């Protein structure tokens, strides 16, 4: 994989759906090579923020910039050559093989006239290897477990050779082993290849362990932005999630570690 990296920023970005839910005046600077986790309760705007960042939604006001270039000035194809997105899951209506799915990551580079080139096939093979699923190439995507499918989707995103990788709760449906595997992979891509990573996360403890910077959203605005230690405080979590927790240092890494407090223990 190449190692060019890009930054992403938002200037006074606002967006509203028909049903009234909105993001308000988001200002955000993410430098090339950063790895950032987006946190917040359901419906706080994490997914919308990622969709604005990938350009499939356009802001009502303000602008999204990819390395100082306005995203809306780029074509869909140009954006996809630089930004890749990993959603929670994909459902395929037909029985595609794993290699065929990963090759789809080359879509923004392939021309309809000439079809894929040797380079496209090489990049696909590399992506499979990087994610550690070269053994699954001939299997059908739909026959794989959720964890394996998520690795295939990650490999497809890598086949795009992205400068920015956006992930929307990539570990939402996975068991604990696969959650850690996927996040380890994402972090090593960031460390070794300089890919800028922005991921919406549900699990606060995993976010604390794997991300250098966390952004906490509340009702469409940025509530806190900083290192895990700055963001994951008992007070912030109470204010945003309305949950009572204790935060203590992780026994091994000393990153903030969160445990919930059941109601009957809260008097003490």
């Amino acid at each position: 994989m190449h190692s060019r990296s890009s930054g992403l920023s938002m200037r006074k970005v606002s967006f509203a759906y028909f049903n009234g839910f909105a993001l308000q005046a988001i200002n955000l600077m993410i430098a090339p090579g950063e790895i950032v986790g987006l946190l917040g309760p359901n419906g706080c705007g994490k997914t919308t923020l990622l969709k604005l960042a990938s350009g499939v939604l356009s802001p009502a006001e303000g602008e999204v910039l990819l390395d100082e270039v306005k995203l809306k000035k780029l074509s869909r194809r140009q954006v996809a050559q630089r930004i890749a997105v990993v959603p929670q899951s994909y459902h395929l209506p037909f029985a595609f093989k794993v290699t065929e799915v990963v090759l789809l990551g080359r879509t923004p580079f392939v021309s309809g006239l000439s079809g894929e080139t040797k380079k496209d096939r090489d990049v696909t093979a590399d992506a499979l290897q990087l994610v550690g699923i070269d053994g699954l190439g001939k299997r059908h995507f739909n026959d794989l477990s959720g964890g394996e499918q998520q690795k295939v989707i990650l490999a497809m995103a890598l086949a795009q050779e992205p400068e920015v990788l956006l992930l929307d709760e990539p570990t939402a449906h996975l068991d604990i082993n696969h959650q850690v595997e996927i996040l380890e992979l994402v972090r090593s891509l960031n460390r070794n290849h300089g890919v800028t990573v922005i991921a919406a996360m549900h699990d606060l403890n995993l976010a604390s362990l794997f991300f250098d910077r966390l952004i906490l959203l509340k009702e469409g605005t940025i509530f806190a932005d900083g290192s895990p230690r700055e963001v994951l405080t008992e007070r912030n979590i109470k204010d945003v999630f309305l949950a009572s927790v204790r935060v203590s240092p992780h026994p091994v890494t000393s990153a903030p570690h969160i445990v919930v407090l059941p109601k009957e223990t809260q008097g003490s």
Partner: protein
Amino acid sequence: MLTLTLVGAMLLACAVGAVSIPPLDIVKMTLNRLPLFDFQPTWQLTDETIIFQIRLIRVVAGVLIGAALATAGVLFQGLLRNPMADPYIIGTSAGAALGATLAMMVPLGLAFAGFGLVPVGAFCGALLTVLLVYNLARVGGKTPVVSMLLAGFVVSAMLASVMSFLIIVSDILQLKLHSVFSFIMGSISVQEWSQIAVIAPLILGGIVVARFFAFHLNAFALGEEGAAYLGISVEREKILILALGSLLTACAVSLSGLIGFVGLVVPHAVRLALGPDHRLLLPASALAGAAFLVIADTLARTLLAPTEIPVGIFTALIGAPFFIFLLRRSRREYAF
């Protein structure tokens, strides 16, 4: 393999009929038309007339129609991500049927390039209906697949009842009930090479253009949002693929009426055999659809000769059991 099957089916279809003609003679006759060959005729001149003026026209029409319907089926199934989709799903069939019935009500014998009013009516009816359905389903600059399927269903139902109403109240249609029925069941009714000359470039061109969408159709399997993440301008591409599929369908129905099942079953059968990759699926389905329709049409015109059965009856009669066989054999590999 598929190409060989197709050529074999075409030869066989030319050979059988009220007068049977040896396939070898047919090959020689055809090659004689090229400047390089000069075989001594071992056949009668009438045989040559039967082949070139009657049977070959019909076989070539069958090839074009089958290829067009199968390709359109692949396009619609891939774009709509719906295994139940066929070339008629967004209203082309109802539109074509109404267009054809309206044309039958006109008591004039207009014709150009071998086309009477009925094929023209069917062609226009199909395309106008798709246009209507597409615009009905459009909300806020987008045309979601679900609204398009619903709009297609509703518009089809409406046009079908208009057609039934016309059949009941119109004396002309009462007299032409047999033609109406043949159109709805689908039967190849091409009589002149000039018709082929008009439609063949459209269908062949459409099949070639469809192949350029193969890679993007694979990406559409991820859903429209997934396709957008991969750099596809979804709404623009959707219009192009819909227009292409509808054009192919309209060409086919103008030659034959509503032949069902080819556009549904052939893509599935090919997918089960060769996989869902559209780069292979598109050309293979075109060949398989062509061979399938030629075989079905040969059966339709010879089995109860001299009575001709609408070929649409046969495509369903052969297609359904074959499809069930395929499904049961490879159920595990297939994602329904």
